Structure formats: C-alpha cells, structure tokens
C-alpha cells in the first residue's frame, strides 16, 4: 500500500514538473463560477478559452477551474493559478472582484482580468459586455408578444449588472406598451435549475406569459416551453431546449476579446484596460429571432441596427426613477459610471429592490 502511494506521489511530481517545463508557452488561465457544462454563462467563457487555444496554437497553454464559489474559495483558486505559473488569469464572475484584487497585489508579475466588476489595479484590467443592449430589444419583443401584458423575470442577486438589465428590459417594453408589467423573483443563486424552475412555474401561474432570466440554467426556458409560453435564452443560444418558446437569446461572445488580450501579453503590450463592449464590438450578440411574426422581428432588427450604429442608447436621459426623481441630461445617454452603479428601479417596475 505504502509503495503504491509513493509511486503515485512520484508520478504526480513528475507530471507537475513536466508541465512546468513547458513554460516556454504562455499559460493563460480562467476561473469560472459555474460548470463549463452549464450551457450558459460559464460555457460561453469556456468557448472563449477554446478560441484562444485554437487561434494562438502552440504559443499558449490554457487551464481553467470551474464551479468556484464566490468568496474565500475564489481567492484560493486564483492564488493557485498565480503560483502555478499562469501569466494571465481571467476571473469571470462579479463576486471574484475582491479576491482578484487581493491576489493580484501579491503577484505583481501576473496579469489579471476581471469580468463584470469595477475595481482596477496596475496588473488588473476589467472587462464586461453591455448586456443591457440586448435586454432592451428583448423588452420590445416581450411587450409586442405578450397577451397578458406581464413578463416574469427570474433574477440572481441585486447587483448593478442585474438591476441595469431589468431597467433596460422595462425601458424597451415601455417604448412599445407604456403599461407593461413585470413580476420579479430573486432566487439568490446564479445557478440552481430546480429553484429557477420553481420560480418560473410560480410566475407562469401568476399570469406572466413571457419569461426573462438573469440566472444561468436552461430550466426557466424549458418551463415556458412546457407551458406553451414564451421566453428568452440567457448567455448562450438555448433554442435546442425550447424550440417553440425561445424568442431570442442574449448571448456573449468573448472569443475576439480573449484572443486579443492573450496576444497582448505575448507581445508585451498588455495594459490594465477597462473594456465594456456591446453589440457594435460583437461582444453582445442576439441569437436569431424565432417564434415571432415578421413585424416584431422588424422592430427588433431595427433597434439592433440603431444600437450598433450608435444612433440609439437604451438609457437615453432623462430617466425617471421609481420614486419619481430623474437622472441624466435630456438627449444624452447616462454615463457609464452611472450605469455601473445602478441601484434603483425605473418608473413602472412594481417591486421593491432588495438592498
């Protein structure tokens, strides 16, 4: 028994030594909050990692950790990568923000990139996608397609990213039907298919006939399909799960960004940037519009074109908050800083924002 263990240990050492020897390659590493098989958010990031491998070939070596919980576990995971010789580490969830900053301070030679947060450092860049652009279009489609005039919205945590999404969706919906209603359920998890399905059933039972989600599994959309109602995919195209229910999906395409950033490290030109890409940059992509009549598709395509060309911004000032006060200057979009710290609902959302 002892002998076997010694052999196993020797083998393990041998393996790690050989991977250290391959250090001629640049090691790029990813930390995901969910499983790569979630077919949603983490899956899309992993597609980006694979794109890097494909594009840069032998010059890079990649690694990833999945299912990393936000909090102390994240710090351990990130630090492990930093110690193992990763030269650039992408941490892909909002809750990884503080752990990333902490570890980055200890490893000044390693480059870090944190998605969807707002804290930067000399070796920490941030990146995010303007998901809200897609959500505005979804709001327009929902208001056109809903018979009950009510959407059900399943959400994870009350962070600016998510609140911004709800507001953008409602602005889009109100542009079509000023009296459009939304029912909101917070499931307090990014990923729990069972809970997401429960929330979906409850919302459908209360008269919502279109489901929107800001959680990562395909369960809500499947419930919509089962009930003969409609919904939107999240993060990746979920049409396979709901061929009759999915109207479109708000997907993220990280491939070009990841390739560019890893290339920058290879070239020695990497700087801690602040990237917030949208439809124009190809970072936010709406999957094909399905299960809707042509006139609705026309409106959606038109809005997408206007957002891409820069002639339209979903958060065009002034925006009226739930309490009646307004923000933003007339005729100008809200500044990015205002969007990224959004902690209020707009007028017309009948819900109290959890604080």
């Amino acid at each position, binding site marked *: 028994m002892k002998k076997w263990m010694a052999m196993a240990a020797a083998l393990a050492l041998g393996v790690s030594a050989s991977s250290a020897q391959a250090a001629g390659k640049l090691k790029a590493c990813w930390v995901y909050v969910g499983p790569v098989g979630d077919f949603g958010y983490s899956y899309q990031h992993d597609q980006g990692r694979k794109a890097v491998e494909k594009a840069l070939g032998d010059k890079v070596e990649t690694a990833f950790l999945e299912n990393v919980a936000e909090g102390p576990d994240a710090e351990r995971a990130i630090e492990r990568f930093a110690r193992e010789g990763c030269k650039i580490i992408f941490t892909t969830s909002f809750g990884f923000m503080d752990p990333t900053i902490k570890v980055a301070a200890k490893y000044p030679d390693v480059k870090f990139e944190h998605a969807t947060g707002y804290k930067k450092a000399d070796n920490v860049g941030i990146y995010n996608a303007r998901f809200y652009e897609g959500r505005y279009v979804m709001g327009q489609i929902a208001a056109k397609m809903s018979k009950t005039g009510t959407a059900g919205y399943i959400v994870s945590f009350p962070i600016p990213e998510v609140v911004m999404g709800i507001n953008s969706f409602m602005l889009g919906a109100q542009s079509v039907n000023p009296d459009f209603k939304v029912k909101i359920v*917070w499931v*307090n998890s990014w990923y729990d298919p*069972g809970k997401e399905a*429960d929330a979906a059933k409850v919302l459908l*039972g*209360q008269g919502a006939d279109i489901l929107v989600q800001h959680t990562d599994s395909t369960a809500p959309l499947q419930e919509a399909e089962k009930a003969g109602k409609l919904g939107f995919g999240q993060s990746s195209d979920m049409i396979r799960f709901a061929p009759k229910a999915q109207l479109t999906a708000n997907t993220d395409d990280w491939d070009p960004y990841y390739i560019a950033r890893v290339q920058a490290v290879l070239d020695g030109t990497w700087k801690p940037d602040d990237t917030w890409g949208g439809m124009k940059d190809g970072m936010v992509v709406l999957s094909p519009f399905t299960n809707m009549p042509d006139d609705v598709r026309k409106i959606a395509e038109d809005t997408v074109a206007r957002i891409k060309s820069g002639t339209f911004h979903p958060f065009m000032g002034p925006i009226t908050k739930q309490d009646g006060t307004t923000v933003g200057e007339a005729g100008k979009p809200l500044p990015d800083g205002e969007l990224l710290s959004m902690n209020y609902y707009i007028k017309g959302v009948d819900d109290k924002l959890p604080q």
Partner: protein
Amino acid sequence: MNDQVLSVILTIITASTPLLLAAIGELVVERSGVLNLGVEGMMAVGAVSGFGAALMTGNPYAGVLAALVAGALLSLLFGFLTLTMVANQVATGLALTLLGLGVSGLMGEAFVGQPGVHLERLSIPGLSGIPFIGPILFGQDFLVYLSLVIVAAVSYMLFRTRTGLVIRAVGDSHQSAHALGYSVVGVRYLCVMFGGACSGLAGGYLSLAYTPQWVENMTAGRGWIALALVVFSSWLPWRIVVGAYLFGAITVMGFSLQAYGIGIPSQLLSALPYVVTVMVLVLISRNRALMRANTPACLGQPFVPDR
C-alpha cells in the same frame, strides 16, 4: 385565483419529492447506525445515470431504474470502505460526495445540452380531470406516489416488523446485536444500499421530472438538506414528510410572494425555508426522552466484531 393556488401546490410537490426520497433512504441508513454523508454525490450520479439511460432508450422508466441502480452501486463502494475496511464514515461520506459530483460530471459530458426525456404525469380518465383535486391527487408522476409509499413502508417495516427491530438493534447497540447472532455488517450493507437506491431515485427525479435535463451540479445542495431533515425529524419517517413538504412549501411560497410584489426582502425569503423547517421540527421533537430513544446510539461508530 384557484389556478394560482393549484400551480403553487403542484410546484411544491415537485420541489419536495427529491428531498423526501433522499431523506427517507438516509433515515434507514442512519437507523442501522451508519452515517453516510455522500447523499449529494449519490444523487448526482443517479441524476446523470437516469438521464443517460432515458435518453438512450427513449424510456423514462428505464431512466428511473438506472438511477436507482447507480445510486445503490455507489453506496456499495461506501459500504465496502466503511463496513468491510472500517474506514471513518464521515470522511468516506464526504469523499463520496466529491467523487459522485466529479464522476457525474465526467459521465454526463455527452449529455450536456441535450433535451431530456420527460417522466409523464399520471392521467386517469375521469379522476385527473376533476377540478383542483384531480391534478393534485391523480395527476402526479409515479415517483411522487412512490415516495409516499416508501415512507409508509419504511415506517411500517421499522416499527411493526421483526426486520425493523433487527435494523434498530444494529443501530442502537451493534455489540448486542452481534452477540445475539445477527450479522451487523450484513444488515448495514443492505441498509446502505437501500439508502443509495433512494438517493439515486431522488437524483433521477431531478433529471427526469423536476427539470428534465442534465447539467453538472444540478443537485445544488439538496443532498445536504435531506441529511439535515433526517436529524431534525429525529429519525421518524412521517416527520420527514412534514419536513420535506414544509421546506418545499416555504421555498415556493417565498417565490410566489415575491412575484406578487409584497416587498419582503428576498434574502429573508430564501433563508426562511431553513429557519422555519428547523424550528418546526425542533418544536415537534422537544420531547427529550423520545428524542433519545429515537437517536441511533451507534450512529457513525465503526463496528469490528470482537470475535
């Protein structure tokens, strides 16, 4: 309004059934004196096996069978390590959870992103169509009924039959049971396998009825809730039904209140199922003497026959 109440009740039943299945299995395991913390892992393996078998055969019932068998097989590994090799039960159980989650991810790689086979709901002409009561009593999938039948059978078996007496004797005093000539290890093996089969079924329920799909970690901690339910129900079968349904009901009603826009903080609502379930079960178990009588005295203790 009636429709809304009905949809909430139906949602509660689906949310509670996996907890009930896993917990009733673990109850029997613990009654025999074994603590298997691997419920979450066995559920995950049950979920992926059930999903895979149903997908390949096109038959959801084949999936249910596969889930059951897979859970039992994995528990057999636990049994071998803790009963035959006398390894530490807590450590082995934790390892089983990690192993189960990992193995299920590996097994399920090909199934990710595949729409699953759905376990259909019962439809009895005449009965299932009765307004309100019909869908609740006669419109569930068969695992819902099976879970309640298992509870009734376990309750009867534990307290009304000789077999139950032997199981409880093994759990309360393995040395005495051994001295009387009962095979402690043999009884425990069977109980562990029963627990594994139930956990597997619970997993199968997730991937075949609750959310018919396979995704990694889809158990999302339900195995741990089941484990807690066993303790808080003071190892009494019918209390597990109370606990599981209470937990499911409060979770779902929390969502329902949110959707009505009542304005109770959602964080409080998500904590409520845990708080209320623990409180209620502690209240009904406040009889100390009864509590002590029902706690398996040898729980978690390894058994090595002295001769």
